[in-house]
């Protein structure tokens, strides 16, 4: 049975911080089909187009009919744990300091044999449910969970290593001035975060909702202006070493395009708050997050970007907004590589129009701030990298997968 996690004691400041290590991350190109599925929380294996054999390990020719048409498809997750072992000694530095480590062979109902990490509650001879997770190297691994949820399941150390669970962690919500920022603070408090730092810029301007924010137990209001490099680096200097998850809630939404816009002030603000703000956060918090990736139960874990789904395909009605979001998406991809040595996940959460003031004239479906906040928390609890929230975001993702050019035209009308 999983033991519930105890709230970690205060870190001993005289002790050296453990350096993060990476488990083996080399994968063949084909095997990264699993990485794509794990990033989104799907369970997908190759299924031969010609003979329907479900295949594992990933490969380039079907072992039944030699077909090379082997796309990844979602398959049933159930199977039986046939045999297990506990690795006590490992030649690999990452696992060496994490033994004992249980792995086992699962016979999947869909066919293949899969050697998988075992959740503490997965028992030999019993049925299990398989999950694809991104491990600290950023590549996909298979994890066998008990068939049904068990108490304190998320606290299993193997599983917690694959996820960014906010429980007992310290979170920074970069902008608490907006409904999204405030909903985020509530959601993280509910998820068991130890401290929720909430950044507020320009304290001389009124902050609607400040009193309600202050009432949330773990919340600590801190000065943070994403347009001011000194403000960002100061906050990182003061609190960086005790922030495990950064959630960038800064937003700048204005309708209007590129050609049919008069002047640059709005666009400059947009780039400053969204893109340059992200770069400031990355430079100020990135190194300390990366260094603390193996720092105990509440090790640094994630950097969360809230991105319009239109970062993926410009929506001309909100054209300069889309472009700024696209800049942030590209930066986030770079950050993913730069933060990986610390095992820090960069999670991008894509959404369509929100139920907030600057999307006022956009017809539904729109995403409520609380829905977005809960999706962020869930994404972290599952250790995802790419999350799509709401009907519009899912729709964009589906259309992009089939014909991006058609989507480009459709968004123009």
């Amino acid at each position, binding site marked *: 049975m999983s033991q519930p996690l105890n709230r970690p004691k205060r870190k001993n400041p005289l002790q050296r911080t453990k350096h993060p290590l990476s488990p083996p991350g080399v994968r063949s190109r084909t095997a990264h089909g699993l990485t794509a599925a794990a990033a989104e929380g799907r369970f997908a294996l190759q299924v031969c187009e010609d003979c329907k054999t479900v295949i594992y390990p990933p490969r380039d020719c079907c072992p039944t009919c030699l077909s090379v048409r082997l796309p990844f498809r979602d398959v049933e997750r159930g199977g039986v744990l046939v045999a297990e072992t506990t690795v006590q000694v490992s030649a690999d530095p990452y696992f060496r300091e994490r033994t004992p480590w249980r792995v086992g062979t699962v016979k999947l109902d869909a066919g293949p044999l899969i050697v998988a990490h075992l959740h503490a509650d997965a028992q030999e001879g019993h049925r299990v449910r398989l999950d694809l997770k991104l491990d600290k190297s950023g590549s996909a691994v298979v994890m066998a969970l008990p068939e049904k949820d068990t108490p304190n399941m998320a606290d299993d150390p193997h599983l917690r290593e694959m996820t960014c669970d906010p429980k007992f962690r310290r979170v920074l919500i970069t902008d608490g001035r907006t409904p999204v920022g405030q909903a985020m603070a509530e959601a993280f408090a509910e998820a068991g975060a130890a401290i929720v730092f909430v950044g507020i810029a320009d*304290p*001389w*301007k009124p902050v609607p909702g400040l009193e309600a924010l202050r009432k949330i137990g773990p919340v600590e209001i801190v000065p943070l*202006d994403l*347009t*001011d*490099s*000194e403000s960002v680096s100061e906050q990182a200097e003061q609190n960086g070493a005790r922030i495990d998850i950064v959630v960038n809630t800064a937003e700048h939404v204005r309708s209007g395009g590129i050609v049919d816009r008069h002047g640059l002030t709005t666009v400059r*603000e947009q780039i400053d708050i969204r893109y340059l703000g992200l770069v400031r956060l990355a430079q100020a918090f990135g190194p300390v997050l990366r260094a603390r990736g193996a720092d105990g139960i509440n090790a640094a874990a994630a950097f969360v970007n809230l991105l319009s789904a239109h970062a993926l395909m410009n929506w001309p009605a909100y054209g300069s907004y889309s472009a700024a979001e696209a800049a942030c998406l590209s930066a986030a991809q770079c950050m993913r590589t730069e933060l990986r040595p610390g095992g820090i996940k960069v999670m991008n959460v894509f959404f369509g129009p929100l139920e907030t003031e600057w999307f006022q004239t956009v017809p539904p479906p729109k995403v409520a701030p609380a829905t977005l906040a809960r999706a962020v928390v869930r994404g972290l609890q599952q250790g995802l990298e790419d999350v799509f929230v709401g009907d519009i975001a899912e729709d964009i993702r589906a259309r992009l997968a089939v014909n991006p050019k058609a989507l480009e035209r459709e968004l123009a009308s």
Partner: protein
Amino acid sequence: MTVDVLSFARAVALGQIRVVDLTQTLSQDFPTIVLPPELGQCAPFRIEEISRYDERGPAWYWNNISLGEHTGTHFDAPIHWISGKDLPNNAVDTIDVTKFIAPAVVIDCSKECAADPDFALTVAFVEAWEARHGKIEPGHWVLLRSDWSKQDFTQYANLREDGAHTPGPAPEVVKWFVEARDVHGFGTETIGTDLGQGHHFNPPFPAHFYMHGKGRFGLQCLTNLDQLPPKGAVIIAAPLKIKQGSGSPLRVLALVS
């Protein structure tokens, strides 16, 4: 009469002429004017290190700065307002440079402003001041001492649900300053020469409307006005020579004998 500038410089160096700095430090924390979100906003002051004796520049320290023409302690030129847009020599690069040195009167309403953030300076109040200190001569800056610069920044901006609540001149006193006293310009300690609620007047923002409409100047976000005599100070306020600039942040110095 000939005046010896070298003697003047010596007097300053020896402290025989007191120099008072009326300027707020340009920093990121200093509030800027906030307009309705749909309109263009004045850029706040921001500073980015280029290098600091490091790999980006081993032996030197320097910064790039970004700010608006109306950020921090700043000068307003007549071209800034619609009412002054067609006047000759109305931009910071074309204003006659002799205008950058002028005497000032300081009208103390600090007690009244402490009691009422929406205090409006009236003709009656100024006439009562003149009864004690003498008539305001032509060509003087009129500086409204509210002691507002002593507030912390949240109180300084004093933004509430219906906008800012900060003191300033009533419409008729501005008109009177220009028509009856031929003033050089109007200066305040607050963000803006007008009341925080000045958009409700007719015309809206009368200090801007009347001053700039008649080719006079504005100074905002001043400080240390409490160190100046009611009369007798000379202000040096020379804005940056920005091409067709509507104003600029600047160093405002007061000289007191």
